[in-house]
């Protein structure tokens, strides 16, 4: 089993306050031939800078470091795309680096930028994320993604992450006996919320029956229960306190960050005692007979949340957060994550959905953005997209952005006649979970309005 030393469980802290001052994104599509990646990144950054009320020149003069976020060079077929994009954005000769940690690349890149500002190395850091997943067909795309499984012992057994997650799902259903419909409700919810976002790729209103009877990708996961494969870009701009207050009277502070890891191979996860969160006790799990984390939990998510909660002094996430964005790549990974981050005890994740907590109007609305199931999974952009959506909620701008007729028109879409405002009233604090592999890397980032 994995044993922890005192150093492993240290609560992280930032040496100075860090703020998210601006966000932007493109829309997300399966196929985006009209724009090259560099231009998509520029569009997303331009939106962020316009939102901060300054000119591109003013912004470029403020930047002193940049972070780039792309999952796989395979997809764009361009090594060192970071350099090409950095130049395209007019940011040379400012230093920069690219971050890669699978599906958690966006969260990791945001963490890197936050650390750069917190350390004092930089005061204004844009994080630019993208993925170009339309250069290859879907079968090849799946194989590229499965290249991020172990090539000796896993990749050949399907060349598809859906198959690996379906393995976890079967075990989850067997151990915890949720209603199968509850998992489908996650897909129904997120595809539905995606209908109200001009950025989304897979909006739709589906019945539970339609979701469960849809074509099976890998039994038991059906198509609407699996994430999109997207093209698009997202941008965040992190800065120090002085800059944040100069730019806006509604600054959003980074109050907690965490990151965790676990074996790339699901097979190698050794049984161990549950690492407890502040809202859990050993007593809660004394009768548990099943493995932990086994195939039903993510140690990396638990570890990341524990760090972020420690930093932000979060005791009860459902009560203290106003909204969350989880990495809903598959319905099963979402329900697993609810438990890892302490929204419900292990084995009872279904209650988070069935109680109504996860919906707008509930105690902790989840993935109002439409998430990865409904809106996008342009992998390098995903973790940034989640934080951007939380930013708009915390600054009360969700309606202004998502309801903007011009944006719908620009993306070639028709705003639905029954369009709904998904703004969480007076939202103050939210968290985004970014997740890789079958839980190889996970980040947790908590934002709070000041």
């Amino acid at each position, binding site marked *: 089993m994995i044993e922890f030393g005192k150093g492993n469980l240290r609560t992280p802290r930032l040496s100075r306050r860090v703020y998210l001052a601006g966000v932007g994104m493109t829309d997300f599509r399966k196929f985006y031939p009209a724009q090259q990646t560099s231009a998509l990144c520029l569009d997303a950054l331009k939106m962020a800078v316009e939102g901060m009320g300054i000119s591109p020149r003013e912004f470029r003069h403020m930047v002193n470091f940049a972070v780039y976020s792309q999952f796989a060079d395979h997809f764009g077929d361009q090594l060192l795309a970071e350099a090409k994009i950095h130049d395209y954005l007019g940011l040379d000769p400012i230093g920069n680096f690219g971050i890669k940690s699978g599906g958690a690349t966006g969260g990791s890149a945001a963490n890197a930028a936050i650390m750069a500002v917190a350390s004092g190395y930089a005061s204004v850091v844009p994080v630019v994320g993208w993925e170009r997943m339309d250069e290859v067909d879907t079968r090849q*795309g799946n*194989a590229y993604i499965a290249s991020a499984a172990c090539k000796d*012992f896993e990749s050949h*057994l399907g060349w598809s992450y*859906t198959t690996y997650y379906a393995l976890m799902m079967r*075990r989850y259903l*067997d151990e915890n006996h949720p209603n199968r419909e509850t998992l489908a409700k996650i897909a129904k919810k997120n595809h539905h919320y995606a209908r109200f976002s001009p950025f989304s790729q897979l909006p739709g209103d589906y019945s539970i029956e339609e979701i469960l009877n849809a074509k099976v*990708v890998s039994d038991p996961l059906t198509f609407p229960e699996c994430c999109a494969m997207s093209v698009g870009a997202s941008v965040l701009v992190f800065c120090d306190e002085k800059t944040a207050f100069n730019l806006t009277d509604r600054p959003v502070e980074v109050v907690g960050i965490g990151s965790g890891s676990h074996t790339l191979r699901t*097979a190698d996860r050794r049984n161990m005692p549950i690492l407890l969160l502040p809202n859990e006790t050993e007593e809660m799990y004394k009768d548990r007979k099943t493995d932990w984390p086994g195939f039903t939990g993510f140690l990396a998510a638990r570890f990341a949340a524990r760090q972020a909660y420690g930093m932000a002094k979060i005791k009860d996430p459902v009560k203290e957060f106003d909204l969350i964005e989880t990495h809903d790549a598959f319905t099963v990974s979402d329900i697993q994550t609810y438990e890892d981050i302490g929204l419900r005890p292990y084995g009872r994740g279904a209650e988070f959905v069935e109680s109504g907590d996860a919906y707008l109007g509930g105690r902790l609305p989840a993935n109002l953005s439409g998430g990865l199931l409904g809106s996008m999974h342009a992998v390098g952009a995903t973790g940034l997209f989640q934080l951007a959506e939380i930013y708009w909620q915390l600054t009360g701008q969700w309606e202004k952005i998502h309801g903007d007729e011009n944006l719908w028109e620009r993306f070639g879409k028709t705003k639905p006649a029954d369009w709904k405002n998904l703004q969480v009233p007076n939202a103050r604090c939210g968290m985004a979970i970014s997740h890789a592999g079958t839980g190889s890397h996970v980040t947790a980032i908590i934002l709070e309005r000041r």
Partner: protein
Amino acid sequence: MNMKKIIKPRQQVKFLPGHKVVLVEKLFGQEVPHGIIVRENPSTVVHRHTYGGLSFFFQSLTEGKLYGKRCLSGSCMHTGIWLPPRVHCPDCWEEMVWTEIDSSAAKVYSHSMTNLPGAGFLLSTPCPLISLEIPSVGTRFMGYLSKFGDGEPYIGMPVRPVFRTRKPTYTILDISWVPRDE
């Protein structure tokens, strides 16, 4: 002396034969917009991948044997056998020793069905993906069931390994599992 200057003709750079240009008109069911060029960039790449210290494992599969690794350090033995094997113990960083796996009580820990595999999959579909629970092994080895009937696989299903000793692929596909009564 009257030297005759030899003038060599300028060299010409030519396209090599055999290249083919394909412009894409439609992808993912969508037309490429007018005025946008989408060009096919074909690629065939061969990687030479070493199994290094794990070569014995893959060689043994071709000989009908399944091996894992065990750490002999007293403080690490509680983990059980590592399968997939790894050369070094992640806890003490010492080299581990090979040990043959007794799979006589192997059973299915979890399963899914590969219906739509990614490119490069070498097996027919549907193909059941399984994870295995094997006594004395501390991990949940992943594999596939190469023979299955209605209602199979299921969690707890007893299985036994079969090996591709003829025409091995030298990949993890050289071991598969079948119902134990098969």
